[in-house]
């Protein structure tokens, strides 16, 4: 039978844990709302940007003069993987899911004889990827100090990626992040950004003939690098919302588990207390009888 004092301490400690997880859940809920708002506000830009890019890419893409960012380098030998994860832990399987997806992708590429290069965004992903793929690292972007992800952060990452592309260091770039569906579901996603691909909705594709100023090619060349930044920015925002959603449900579970544990321990505590009292009574009674 566990010691009464020990049990009492244990209950107190689990209760404290429950308080902390509960608080974290509420903080995550508030942050989630903000993250969702940010994602919501960036959507008009992204949608329109992609619609215009899709139209441009479709009309210029066929010709031989298409920029490398769109048509690719003609090879897919060297692959860059940009793995985006969170800076903090305690968010359930969020980071592991992204890393798992990225690792599977890397393993498949290696099996196919390709060269893999990895750039990580977020501390947690770096730690997890480093164990297996430490040799393939080309860099890490630290956003620990960033309170709220802004477009400039995305531009910074895009700049790193583009500089390395211009230097011919890789042929294909893929982003890994978690797409936010709802609080309980976040889908780890791989999105290829170089060569650029734009999803054009066939039905919604507008058939307006635009005048281009300057030329179509010049506009495309100007906008393609920006499209990388836009893709990274929306991935960062999705990831931010997913992280908070995952943390919220993880902390909700933790709070519930702690509650169950408190109940169980309390029952155990009461039983032991009663057993002690019964014992004492028996001792007193048998003592009295012996007289």
């Amino acid at each position, binding site marked *: 039978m566990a010691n009464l004092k020990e049990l009492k301490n244990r209950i107190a400690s689990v209760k404290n844990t429950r308080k902390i997880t509960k608080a974290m859940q509420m903080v995550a809920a508030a942050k989630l709302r903000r993250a969702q708002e940010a994602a919501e506000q960036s959507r008009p830009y992204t949608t329109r940007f992609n619609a215009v890019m899709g139209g441009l890419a479709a009309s210029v893409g066929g010709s031989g003069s298409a920029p490398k960012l769109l048509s690719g380098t003609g090879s897919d030998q060297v692959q860059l993987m940009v793995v985006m994860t969170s800076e903090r832990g305690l968010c359930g399987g969020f980071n592991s899911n992204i890393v798992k997806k990225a690792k599977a992708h890397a393993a498949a590429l290696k099996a196919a004889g390709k060269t893999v290069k990895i750039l990580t965004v977020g501390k947690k992903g770096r730690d997890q990827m480093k164990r297996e793929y430490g040799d393939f690292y080309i860099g890490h972007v630290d956003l620990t100090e960033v309170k709220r992800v802004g477009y400039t952060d995305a531009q910074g990452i895009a700049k790193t990626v583009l500089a390395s592309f211009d230097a011919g260091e890789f042929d294909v770039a893929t982003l890994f992040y978690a797409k936010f569906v709802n609080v309980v579901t976040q889908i780890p996603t791989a999105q290829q950004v170089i060569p650029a691909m734009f999803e054009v909705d066939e039905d919604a594709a507008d058939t307006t003939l635009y*005048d281009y100023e300057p030329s179509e090619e010049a506009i495309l060349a100007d906008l393609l690098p920006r499209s990388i930044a*836009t893709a990274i920015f929306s991935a960062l925002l999705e990831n931010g919302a997913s992280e908070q959603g995952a943390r919220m449900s993880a902390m909700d579970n933790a709070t519930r588990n702690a509650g169950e544990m408190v109940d169980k321990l309390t029952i155990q505590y009461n039983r032991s207390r009663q057993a002690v009292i019964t014992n004492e009574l028996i001792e007193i009674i048998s003592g009295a009888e012996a007289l």
Partner: protein
Amino acid sequence: MADTMQFDLVSPEKSLASGPATSVQIPGADGDMTVMANHAPTITTLRPGVLRVEAPDATTEYVVTGGFAEISAAGVSVLAERAVAKGDMTAEDMSEMVAEARAALNNAKEFFENEPGPVDDAAKLLADMVAMGDDMGIGSK
């Protein structure tokens, strides 16, 4: 009263303005242009400059850099990487942007030693920034 059209100004972080406008002056890469209702569908890239929106009841001005404007039958959408209401623009912001453009130019000079294209582009960007600052009276040295 003149015809109005739908005008939207969006940056990646948020949508800044949306509403009817009678005319919009866009700092296009090839020169300023004024768009009024029923303009021919056009897509143009932006150079750093002042975007002037005339609505039926008020005129607002925004400082925009990088991006493009899409003019269609539905109206005008300006997608700018950075857009700030002109009144909110300070000399510090301006010099920061100019410094950024200058750094980009130096970068380009180093990186593309034998290709004039990107260097000229960066130089033009810097010149546009400085011109915009002077125009607004908060130019930096």
